[in-house]
């Protein structure tokens, strides 16, 4: 089974193609991690083209699309999610979503990524790599997260502990998708893990335009 994996939950855009055996072993054929900042929408499709070309494959060869559902900054996150949904729809193949944090690092760890507004997204994993807590969003100073911490090292100081640098990888996305990939046709629609409500406050009362 040929898998195309995409993630835009962090400033690093990730696209990769991998072959997954019936036994569940994944071999990454080509992968790109592009530090694209807020240019995910510009760079994702060209990057997908690149990884397919590097693997000597065409989109028509892809059997399933795996997408990171975040959590991550909303605008960039949606680019990856809607791209995965549209590619899968146009090709008539299933799309499978995973928590992006599950695809960072391996084994016992707590993953932290940038949630902006001086907060981090986090999730904790046991020795088998299974998520046991999170995903959540929290101020690093109040997080009380227990290590080893992996992910975005810029938060080390505010977390009061070192953070081993790590990013989303294609292998990580496939690993996280192992369950649904066993039966991808049963996957539901891709719904981002927003974790925050939209910022919006209804106007409390009618405000006169004039004061005279």
């Amino acid at each position, binding site marked *: 089974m040929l898998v195309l994996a995409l993630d835009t939950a962090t400033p690093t855009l990730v696209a990769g193609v991998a072959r997954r055996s019936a036994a569940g072993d994944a071999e990454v054929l080509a992968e790109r991690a592009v530090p694209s900042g807020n*240019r995910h*929408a*510009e*760079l*994702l*499709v*060209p990057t*997908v*083209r690149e990884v397919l070309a590097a693997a000597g494959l065409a*989109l028509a060869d892809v059997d399933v699309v795996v997408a990171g559902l975040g959590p991550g900054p*909303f*605008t960039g996150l*949606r*680019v*990856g*999610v*809607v*791209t*995965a*949904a*549209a*590619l899968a*729809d*146009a*090709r008539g193949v299933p799309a499978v979503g995973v928590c992006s944090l599950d695809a960072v690092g391996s084994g016992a760890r707590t993953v932290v990524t940038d949630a902006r507004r001086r907060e981090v997204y986090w999730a904790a994993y046991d020795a088998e790599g299974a998520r046991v807590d999170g995903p959540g969003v929290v101020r690093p100073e109040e997080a009380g997260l227990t290590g080893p911490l992996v992910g975005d090292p810029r938060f080390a100081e505010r977390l009061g502990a070192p953070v081993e640098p790590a990013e989303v990888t294609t292998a990580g996305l496939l690993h996280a998708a192992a369950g649904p990939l066993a039966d991808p046709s049963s996957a539901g*629609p891709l*719904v*981002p893990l*927003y974790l925050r409500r*939209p*910022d*919006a*406050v*209804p*106007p409390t009362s*009618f405000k*006169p*335009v*004039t004061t*005279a």
Partner: protein
Amino acid sequence: MTEPLVIGFETSCDETGVGVVRGHTLLADALATSVAEHERFGGVVPEIASRAHLEAMVPTVHRALAEAGVAPSDVDAVAVTAGPGLTGALLVGLAAAKAYALALDKPLYGVNHLAAHVAVDELQHGRLAEPSLALLVSGGHSSLLLVPDLAREVTPLGRTIDDAAGEAFDKVARVLGMPFPGGPPIDRAAREGDPAAIDFPRGLTGPRDAPYDVSFSGLKTAVARWVEARRRAGEPVPVADVAASFQEAVADVLTAKAVRACRDHGVDHLVLGGGVAANSRLRALAEERCAAAGIVLRVPSPRLCTDNGAMVAALGSRLVAAGVAPSAPDLGADSSLPVETVSR
């Protein structure tokens, strides 16, 4: 040889639109809207709109293709609104369109939402005469455009210096306690009112004012003052008269300036576009004044005046026919894309 089949994606504001056209023939116009979710906020909340676009995207594509009776593989080109609009909202449609273009191996055209508001008329009245003058009046824009070539050259003659016409409708509606968006309820209320009841100001109509620019901020404030004075005095507000008189002021200024621009530039075709072009009084007064001035007026049906995917497909179709180069693979969205950039 049949004309190319073009699918168009629109997500610049709160409508998720997917349209399908062949040449100038409208085949499908599927729409999902998050307008009800914004109502209690009195305006569009960008993040709510963006989330709704993502949720609606694939189902809306399915509806459009089913309505058109075509398969994805029948599509010859993909068009998408690349701006102007809300960045987060634009990017959902842009990313989706780029993905469909990649998967279907078809060219992608990033188009200007405002030019698309003009192009939509071709689906109802055939190819636009060129040059035409276009009066584009929507929620975010009010512009007079000279259109020598809709596929390549659109020249702004004037624009609003403050509020857009649709914005004025929305704000006045709020003053009158009407729901959002305010255009339709004001239009309805005005039918029972006297357009000459209150003499609201006509902005920028003095002899030394910019002939093609418009201003609606003063009008909006004048309406609010008038209504508040009534309320303070404990008198009932004659809502229908206020709506009719406000609407008359907007329609009067817009049509007078559009007809003048036609005359000054020797252009005898005027096309209206944008959500406010759905306004019944603007349509009637434009009809009247164009007839008197010997100008051919073209107005799309109200359904196609507000945001939709068909308008994007219509402009895409025009670009394909004109042989304009498709967009580069790294196409992005530009929230303030200038009106003269028809495609990018």
